[in-house]
């Protein structure tokens, strides 16, 4: 093939009862972000610049779980994390525990470009952001009313494990509900709403890049780090491909999911879609997740074993698709 390709996601694991207007909202956002990326690619921007640009847009929009609109930690505050990787040279940057940085992915990029390290977290990361003159805001900026409501439900779900919006699949007992595919990380899907965001790009020079950003798990313990900032788990890029994952953090970390796609391409010679399919089928055990990926050849692919994944992709030859369900 050849040529540029781009994919974006807004999370794997979608409430099948998501109201149509919410679905439309999501598709509009994904479309807008794709178009932003496509424009940049047509202007010959590099893959690493494009993934940052697109993820910034996703962070700024309150719809998904990143930047503004992030899920809330147990104490009601927002703690954000992100990572970015440049396949050309495999440089990477990651951040965790951010509370005032408006665009976490941009701080991750600065860690990669302007610090001697690859991963900064919590107060050290915030200090670095300040030094770098990055835009900072109050933590309240990130908190939406909807998520305040979600946190309440999540706390209740931890004791009751019941959500009236979900059809009564397998009774009200904890065990049976745990069997339901409409649960993720022990919470009803409508409450859990993973919605981590990400973007992968291969530019017209065949360079791949990937970036992922999130507020993390609703009602998480403060200080909890998920897969999104972990290179090899939530994000990975090398000269062959760029990958961004979303879903149950534990499953993604144990499965080193993003690296896995690249490893089977590299060590088993699989093509992009084959690699993605293999990883989703064989590497998730009982976990639920999804991912998007591009290859240096201009291919784009996605895979998920969840009920839906907010995603969009486009290639230079004019192909474009935005979707939620299978």
């Amino acid at each position: 093939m050849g040529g540029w390709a781009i994919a974006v996601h807004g999370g794997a694991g979608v409430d099948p009862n998501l109201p149509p207007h919410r679905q439309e909202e999501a598709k509009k956002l994904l479309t807008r972000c794709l178009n932003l990326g496509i424009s940049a690619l047509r202007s010959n921007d590099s893959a690493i610049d494009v993934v940052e640009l697109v993820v910034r847009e996703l962070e700024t929009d309150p719809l998904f779980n990143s930047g503004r609109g992030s899920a809330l930690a147990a104490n009601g505050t927002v703690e954000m994390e992100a990572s970015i990787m440049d396949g050309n040279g495999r440089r990477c940057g990651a951040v965790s525990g951010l509370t005032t940085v408006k665009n976490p992915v941009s701080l991750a990029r600065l860690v990669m470009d302007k610090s001697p390290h690859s991963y900064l977290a919590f107060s050290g990361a915030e200090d670095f952001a300040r030094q770098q003159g990055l835009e900072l805001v109050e933590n309240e900026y990130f908190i939406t009313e909807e998520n305040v409501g979600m946190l309440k439900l999540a706390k209740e779900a931890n004791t009751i494990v019941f959500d009236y919006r979900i059809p009564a699949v397998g009774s009200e007992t904890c065990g049976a509900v745990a069997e339901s595919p409409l649960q993720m990380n022990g919470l009803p899907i409508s409450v859990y709403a993973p919605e981590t965001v990400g973007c992968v790009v291969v530019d017209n020079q065949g360079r791949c890049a990937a970036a992922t950003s999130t507020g993390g798990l609703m009602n998480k313990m403060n200080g909890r780090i998920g897969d999104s900032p972990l290179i090899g788990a939530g994000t990975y890029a090398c000269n062959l491909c760029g990958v961004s994952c979303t879903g149950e953090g534990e499953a993604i970390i144990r499965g080193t999911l993003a690296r896995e796609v690249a490893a089977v391409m590299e060590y088993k010679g699989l093509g992009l879609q084959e690699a993605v399919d293999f990883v989703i089928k064989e590497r998730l055990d009982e976990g639920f997740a999804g991912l998007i990926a591009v290859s240096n050849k201009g291919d784009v692919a996605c895979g998920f074993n969840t009920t839906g994944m907010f995603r969009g992709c486009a290639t230079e030859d004019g192909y474009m698709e935005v979707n939620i369900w299978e």
Partner: protein
Amino acid sequence: MGWAIALHGGAGDIPLSLAAERRQPREAALRHCLKVGVNALKAQKSPLDVVELVVRELENNPHYNAGRGSVLTREGTIEMEASIMDGNTKRCGAVSGLTTVVNPISLARLVMEKTPHIYLAFDGAERFAREQGIETVDSSHFITQENIERLKQAKEANRVQIDYTQPIQKDEKKETPTANGDSQIGTVGCVAVDSHGNLASATSTGGLVNKMVGRIGDTPIIGAGTYANNLCAVSATGKGEAIMRGTVARDVAALMEFKGLSLKEAAAYVVEECVPRGNVGLVAVSAKGEVTMAYNTTGMFRACATEDGYSEIAIWPSVQN
């Protein structure tokens, strides 16, 4: 088959001229920790218990960069991190930014076993430690005079130190112009397999001398510094950034799985082909009871033993010991 164990105390540009008073206590520690691990395996302890036990010993030893003896951040403070992984279940636990926890590796284990999460850091991790009643002490407990010296030297040289075992010389040739010194030298780790093929890996560190506050290295990153599945268990050490980018620990296992390489071949491949020279070392064991210790640095503090009676304690390539 049979059990096997390997442990390390860091890979780096350890000069052959390392003074006896710096070398001997470290060798003695390796010998002691190996014995602790071997005895535990002989007593049928699970590999998960064994690697935690051995790493605790290394953390308690002030001569290694983990727990007590951890190197200092640029503020002169302690920030420790660790991770542990069980090969059978691929369950894992990781911690970062610890300042008072006596044994970071044990907190990592508690994260794995007592929370729905994998990775806890900084204040949240410290709070969890208190909830769990794990042993904590004032941060000053971890600070050694040697490390205060090291930090002073690093600041004077105004650089992030790559090899903490040596005082910084102004004309250090090995230093790269871009101080991308995300080094993990002196990290400690242990991998073990029992006679049933159960595998586990654990790694722990104080990080990098003069590191920025909040800096996280490869050690708590599953797939980078630590990995275990049903084929092998790996613990890496060296330049954190290189290990992270190279997903070192995961790649050893991936090469065995996807390319059919043996443990030794896979480890050698990763160390020779996937990471620039002078940047990495690792120890690994396989489900079959094999052990390998590979590095592309001048040396690596290491020790290993297998059930059939083989054992080795070394710093440099065997021919020079």
